[in-house]
């Protein structure tokens, strides 16, 4: 029988043991329908999810809701929006009780006296020119001033085709402000001209992402297997898409056969009642989805599929470690 120890030497087996029992149960929460930016390509607005529900404004109800989420086994709250930092009282409802990750554009600085170790992921969509085209302003100038050297913050760099050949400049400026970075790819939900990926561009960006990981291992939190998965959309000979995605809201998941998926996962709207279809846009074509977390999760829930060889299982371990680091279940 092919066992983990038959595939791994002691070094890799120790790494495996460090993550094998983490049992991460995440769900995603729209904290608010409002944002202080309107980015082209932001799925929340392009798919009208900001109009799907009217946000719950009563803070005690947020506290009660988080209690009910814990009761159904959630042990990681991922806060998105809108812009969560516009509603710190709602953030606090999660932060007091659960490991909590807050996605933000970094324009508003999280109050570190109130949330000293809240993990913050700051979105970045490229260099100043691309950020101005897509987001209306150079957010890095503001976010880097807000979070420079913060040990509980990192950049979520969404790479666009326009960034080919320019990724290193962004990695370097993130390094220079003392932060780490995780890379993902833009899904061009609003069809902005020139921002959709062509196959040759995906091959080129994979090579560039690999090079960044080699050149900046202390700054880049990633793995080459993740780069392969997200640029090819394939894993273990299977293609990513609706019938494979692990990040579909559980009570809405009527797929048959049911794929390997995240246990009890729900993406909640800000009314705390409405559920969105999945971790990203309801209107997105799943066959072209480039969502980084969904692809990471796709790997993570398919552990046994990666037990075909030592290399394959090591790839799985690296992706799981990456996820666990990004959500601080293990140290950097």
């Amino acid at each position, binding site marked *: *029988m*092919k066992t983990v120890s038959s595939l791994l030497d002691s070094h890799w087996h120790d790494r495996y*043991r460090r993550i094998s029992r983490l049992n991460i149960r995440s769900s995603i929460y729209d904290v608010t329908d409002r944002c202080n930016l309107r980015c082209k390509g932001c799925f929340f607005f392009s798919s009208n999810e900001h109009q799907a529900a009217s946000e719950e404004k009563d803070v005690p109800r947020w506290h009660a809701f988080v209690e009910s989420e814990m009761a159904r086994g959630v042990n990681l709250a991922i806060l998105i929006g809108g812009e969560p930092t516009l509603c710190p009282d709602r953030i606090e409802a999660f932060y007091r009780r659960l490991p909590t990750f807050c996605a933000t554009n970094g324009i508003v600085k999280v109050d570190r006296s109130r949330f000293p170790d809240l993990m913050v992921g700051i979105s970045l969509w490229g260099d100043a020119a691309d950020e101005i085209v897509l987001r209306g302003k150079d957010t890095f100038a503001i976010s880097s001033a807000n979070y420079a050297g913060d040990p509980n913050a990192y950049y979520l760099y969404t790479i666009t085709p326009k960034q080919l050949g320019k990724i290193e400049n962004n990695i370097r400026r993130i390094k220079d402000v003392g932060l780490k970075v995780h890379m993902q790819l833009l899904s061009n939900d609003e069809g902005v001209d020139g921002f959709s990926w062509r196959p040759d561009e995906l091959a080129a960006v994979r090579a560039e992402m690999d090079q960044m990981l080699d050149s900046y291992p202390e700054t880049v939190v990633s793995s080459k297997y993740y780069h392969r998965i997200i640029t090819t959309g394939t894993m273990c000979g299977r293609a990513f898409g609706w019938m494979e995605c692990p990040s579909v809201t559980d009570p809405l998941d009527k797929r048959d056969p049911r794929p390997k998926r995240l246990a009890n996962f729900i993406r909640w709207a800000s009314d705390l009642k409405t559920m969105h279809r999945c971790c990203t846009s309801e209107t997105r074509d799943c066959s072209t989805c480039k969502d980084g977390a969904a692809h990471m999760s796709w790997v993570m*829930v398919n552990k046994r599929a990666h037990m075909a060889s030592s290399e394959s299982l090591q790839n799985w371990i690296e992706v799981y470690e990456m996820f666990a680091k990004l959500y601080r279940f293990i140290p950097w």
Partner: protein
Amino acid sequence: MTSDLERTTRRIAEIIIDELKLEDVTPDTFDADLDLVDEVGIDSMDLATIALVIRDEFGIRIDEDDYPKLTTLRIIGEYIADKRSDGE
């Protein structure tokens, strides 16, 4: 003579092999003391799937909080035996 526990353990091996589509092991060669997470590589979703089959077949409910304890075939067999003797 085969005990109830051995029969239960063998049946759990059959369930796991069937549900997880394990191709390189049989109920006869499945080591009852092999760690299912650390060695076989099953995860909590796999355990949830197996728990549903056990519930239907043995008429017992496995609490999700108990999953981390159910580390081997033998331990699952003993867990089922305990639950059944409690009259669940």
